[in-house]
């Protein structure tokens, strides 16, 4: 077992005098095994991204624990090197390939940062080799992208760059938060293949966060369905699609546009 989430809850409070609270994540527990691809599916506002941020250690939970290799990521990390180490092993690809980049800085920087994280000088021979290797991995020609600014690249190219970064770091756990929702439908397959290749070659576990249960069906070993902060169903893709137990899961499945069947809009 690589990751274990136990009774995780996040409550957001807003307001000054009359405090309103919102349970974004409500008592969620699950585990991720090594080399496993797990999808977390739910509509906007169901708490998927909040959950991802907590696992990435970007947002502290209100209660509950996240255990990575048996260690509580919020309590058991004593030094900054523990934390750095955690981010070396748990990495993410986010939804918007436009806002993941600083528009004023050449895209090389995202790769340099990755190299620095694993302690390699980007200017060294090894650094150059790793950059070249990772870019070729994701189907980018180094001379096409290096030295460019973000606006000179397409959305697909930018998302590939973010994946190339992961090929440098070689994390144990990759969190892909809506990584393909802003990518063209015809390009999605390519990006997904690149992510799955990380599992096949490096044995990376992947948490795939998406609102599209159709996508989840094609790529995961297991699907978790979230609704209003709660985990309401967990099963294999075939069982979820063919035999959904929760009413909301049925609604989700019905809302996925199918190619060979037209909706009735009742």
């Amino acid at each position, binding site marked *: 077992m690589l990751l274990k989430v136990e009774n995780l809850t996040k409550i957001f409070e807003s307001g000054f005098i009359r405090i309103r609270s919102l349970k974004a994540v409500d008592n969620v527990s699950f585990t991720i095994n090594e080399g496993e691809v797990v999808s977390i599916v739910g509509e*906007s506002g169901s708490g998927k991204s909040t959950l991802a941020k907590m696992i990435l250690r970007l947002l502290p939970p209100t209660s509950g624990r996240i255990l990575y290799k048996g260690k509580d990521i919020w309590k058991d990390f004593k030094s900054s090197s523990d934390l750095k180490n955690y981010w070396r092993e748990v990495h993410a690809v986010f939804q918007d390939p436009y806002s993941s980049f600083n528009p004023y800085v050449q895209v090389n920087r995202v790769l340099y940062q990755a190299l620095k994280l694993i302690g390699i000088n980007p200017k060294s021979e090894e650094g150059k080799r790793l950059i070249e290797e990772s870019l070729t991995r994701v189907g980018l020609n180094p001379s096409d992208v290096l030295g460019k600014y973000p606006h000179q690249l397409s959305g697909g190219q930018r998302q590939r760059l973010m994946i190339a970064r992961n090929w440098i770091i070689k994390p144990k756990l990759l969190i892909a938060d809506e990584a393909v929702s802003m990518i063209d*439908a015809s390009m999605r397959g390519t990006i997904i293949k690149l992510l799955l290749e990380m599992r096949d070659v490096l044995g990376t576990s992947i948490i795939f966060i998406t609102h599209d249960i159709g996508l989840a*069906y094609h790529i995961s070993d297991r699907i978790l369905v979230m609704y209003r902060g709660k985990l309401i169903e967990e099963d294999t893709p075939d069982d979820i699609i063919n035999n959904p137990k929760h009413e909301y899961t049925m609604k989700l499945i019905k809302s996925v*546009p*199918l190619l*060979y069947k037209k909706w009735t809009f009742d």
Partner: protein
Amino acid sequence: MSHLLKLENVRAYYVIKNRSSIKEVKAVDDVSLTLDESEIVGIVGESGCGKSTLTNVILMNIKPPLKFISGKVILWKDGKPIELNKLSRDRLKKEIWGREISIIPQFAMNALVPTYKVRRIITDIYKSHYETNSDEEYILNMAAKRFKELGLPEKVLNMYPFELSGGMKQRVIIAIATLMNPKLLVADEPTSALDVITQKMVLKTLLDIYHKGFIKSIIFVSHDIATVRQIATRLVVMYAGKIIEDGPVEEIISNPMHPYTKYLIRSVLTPERTTKRGEIVTVPGFPPDLSNPPSGCRFHPRCSYKRSRCLSDEPHMLKVNDKHYVACWLYS
């Protein structure tokens, strides 16, 4: 069935001038399309294929660097054809936009001014596009009536855009765009930023305004063929600035002719028994650079069926049957 819109050999290029050179990006290149009343046309293709540029051409909303090079854009108004490409921007704004053709641009819902209430946005738009001195009460009554007909709560008028969910915002946009009952509504990726459940709601709203007769026809632009097919009656496939296949939705889905359409359909990831789980098909290669498109058939560098002819000669639209057309040398 009466014609509504006709594009004849339209070319619209982005002209980008540098100090030393002039670059032309051929985003819409020799496109012809006839649209009849009561059709719902889905235009599909990958990013950068010219879909959005085509929507601007349909409205003749041409602003630099986009340049209308040649061709005709004809709209039928009260049974008479008008050449939109000959009208001034002022006349288009007064007589055509909003009244005859309306557009929901991509990311329109992000354009709602956050500090104005929905009512102010509506009266502002109405006054700037239609009658400058109309009575606000009258406009708001009309909007309230339309909101009711589309199942939107009337209180939305008194809310700020940030208080609305994504689906609600998009439905407000649809209501605003069709307030004057235009004949044709052009919707550019209206559901792309929404999750699947909201997406279905927005599609239903689009169909509602169509079935209630507020609009006569819809052009729905999207990269997602599975979404488009839910409401479209006809599918137009674009590749690299050209239309490569055109026909009834059911027919193209079950019998795609052009190799690109075949790839496009097989690359869709939907939970269906017909699409095998885990089998991910992708279009090989990359979209071409439209400032220097490939010779002959523009798809030939990525096509696995290519013949020598495809490299040199451009394929013309071939008739497969009464309604189905394809531009590919495989079928001639």
